[in-house]
């Protein structure tokens, strides 16, 4: 399972307009079709904004990864948005954000989701990847760059969980019950 699998073609926005982080997130969710991914888009947005209020998700270097666990999500998903001008995101280095990856997942996919975030950060911190996303001409171009992330997201433990449909009363190592 690789990073690219979580980015649907419909979930790439090349020209985000809003220049402030909360407005920008609203615009992102308004513009993409999330049927099959989100139960209630507005509720999911609320939760995303709430998380954003807790602390900014801009990780510096012109990137932000707004994310939230939400049971509005049917399965893990990412939405990519690009801004030529840059969005004010209160990032640590004070620079505007150009590449935004929104990530959401249901609570039950916690381990997978942390993995997604981890690999996403690693992917974006490679200068080339960031540059190529900025320069991509169309949606397919962006997808091609993301497809370069070849790392398998599934650790041994996750593979087991995904394979044997998670038992509601027994999740190894965590004590999750159903």
């Amino acid at each position, binding site marked *: 399972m690789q990073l690219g699998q979580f980015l649907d073609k419909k979930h790439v926005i090349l020209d985000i307009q809003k220049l402030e982080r909360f407005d920008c997130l609203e615009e992102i969710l308004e513009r993409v079709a999330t049927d099959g991914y989100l139960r209630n888009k507005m509720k999911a947005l609320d939760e995303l904004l709430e998380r954003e209020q*807790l*602390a900014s*998700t801009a*990780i510096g270097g012109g990137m932000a*990864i707004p*994310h939230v*666990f939400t049971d509005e999500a049917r399965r893990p998903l990412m939405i990519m948005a690009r801004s030529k001008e840059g969005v004010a995101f209160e990032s*640590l280095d004070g620079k505007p954000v150009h590449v935004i990856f929104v990530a959401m997942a249901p*609570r039950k996919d*916690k*381990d997978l989701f*942390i*993995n997604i*975030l*981890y690999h996403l*950060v*690693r992917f974006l*911190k490679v200068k080339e990847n960031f540059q190529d996303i900025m320069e991509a001409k169309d949606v397919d171009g962006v997808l091609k760059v993301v497809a370069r992330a070849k790392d398998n997201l599934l*650790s041994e*433990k996750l593979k087991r969980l995904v394979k044997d*449909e998670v*038992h*509601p*009363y*027994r*999740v*190894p*190592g*965590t*004590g*999750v*019950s*159903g």
Partner: protein
Amino acid sequence: MKPSTKDGIVRSLRNQLLGFFRRYKLSDQTFLIVVAVIVGFLGGLGSIFFEKLIELGQHFFFEIVPHIVGNPKWLIILIPAFGAVFLAPLIYFFPVEAKSDGVPATMEAVALKGGIIKVRTFSTRMLASAITLGSGGSAGKEGPIIQIGASIGSAVGQFFKVSGERMRVLVGCGAAAGLAAIFNAPIAGVLFALEVVLGEFSVHSFSPIVISSVVATAVSRAWLVEGAALKLPPYTLFSYWEIGFYALLGIAAGVVSVSFTKALHGVEKLFHRHAPIKTHWQPILGGLVVGMIGFFFPQILGCAYTPILEAIQGNFLWNTLLALLILKIIATAFTLGSGGSGGILYPCLFMGATLGGILGFAFNLLAPGIAPAAGGYALVGMGAVLGAAVQAPMAAIMMGFELTGSYAVILPLMTSCVLATVVHRRLMRHSIYTQALVDRGIDISAAREMGVLTTLTVADVMSREVPKIPSNMPYNEVVQLCLKGQGNYLYTTDEEDNLEGVISFQDIKEFIYDDQLNGLVFARDMANRDVVYVTPDETLASSLNKFSYIDMEELPVVGSVDGFRRLLGIITRSELMKIYRKEMLRRVMIES
């Protein structure tokens, strides 16, 4: 191996149901109760089906077969043996499931196998018992239906993949459902399941078993033809001096119960060691013995309640009663000892009724002013022999009470049942069920030592030092704590110290040397929200059970106040085992 479509359907049904339970956030106890309703319903249906199957057997062996061969009088000698011929292939292919009484097997499954019973037990037992009982074998249908119910309970449990204590409770639910439905006696079903099958009384198992028993009884009452279940005449105590006579009856019942137990296991050993033919043909020999007795005393054949009722109504003379009592012991010992399939509950009732009839007759001769009728003694005798044989006085008392429906029977019943149980216990260590297990080298009381853990609570052993962190702690700090901390777990709490989730070191060890996630992820994102926890007043048995189905070394202790989950402490697996050993040692010293 490619899963079959059937597996697919079962899995998807299970996922649907579990999804449904999850959505409504059912607690453990509620989940168990919902499942208990299902078990009760299926148990009720199972008992109706079993009842019909026996009727079918009776119709075949006692109407169709005689009709074909022209109704000769001597035919009755051969019918039980003829039935046993059909038993042979079942015993040949499923020797464990088809033979003898199912209750010991169920007790064994509960105590030693975590309540797992093979699904095929259900059908094999049903068929074998229907053949034995339908062809006039001298045994009861209650033993088999208890095992059939228990296997339904176990199957439902396996379907939902429950484990440990909850599986045992579901088996108890099934057993109670079976007995309650067939006897129309829900309270007795509950007590029998607790006293005999589970071997313990605990609040945790009580509610689901009661519910299952009630549902099964309702199902069987709704569909079974009226009169199929045993219905006894109401009881009257004529004088309180009679209690003395009932005490004597109790002592005699204890002796009868011991004789029956010894006879049954004696014949079993006889067949086991000295029979000239293979195991699966042995029931034919037993059937011949039963048939010969049945030729002279047809009352001892099968499991009809009529002879019991007649004994209570005083339709037999004392010498007939005595003959019936002795012959019933022999016939049952041969039916079951030779490998026939059936239970001992009904034969016990039969023996109790005849014994009571005889003694009632004697007491009436001795003191007609105090004991004017024999019927009451027959009635109480039933409960006494049963209670003694299975060593479950409570269940026997409630059964007598439920079947007669009169409260007046309670005093005599309690007197006789308890005395009979004590006398049996004095004369031999084991009940008719545990003796069967001992014969196979199983000591059921050792398996029930778990009981030690039910007397101690979590509050006695928990540690109040909890590694807790606020849920908005950033990723790097959490990792630092994990690396420095002693335990493998961190508990996240909200501002008011309520437990939100648990972070396992296992979960994050993959990224521990990488700080990519700093600033993005907080403690609350890393924590598992659906935490299995224990409460301070929970028993150690119940917490051990929780340890058995999750992979954690410790569990949080949570005091639940107004829906909040206040984090109070933790309980560790090793501490639990230490306390268990200490307590066991203490008890052994007291006993010696």
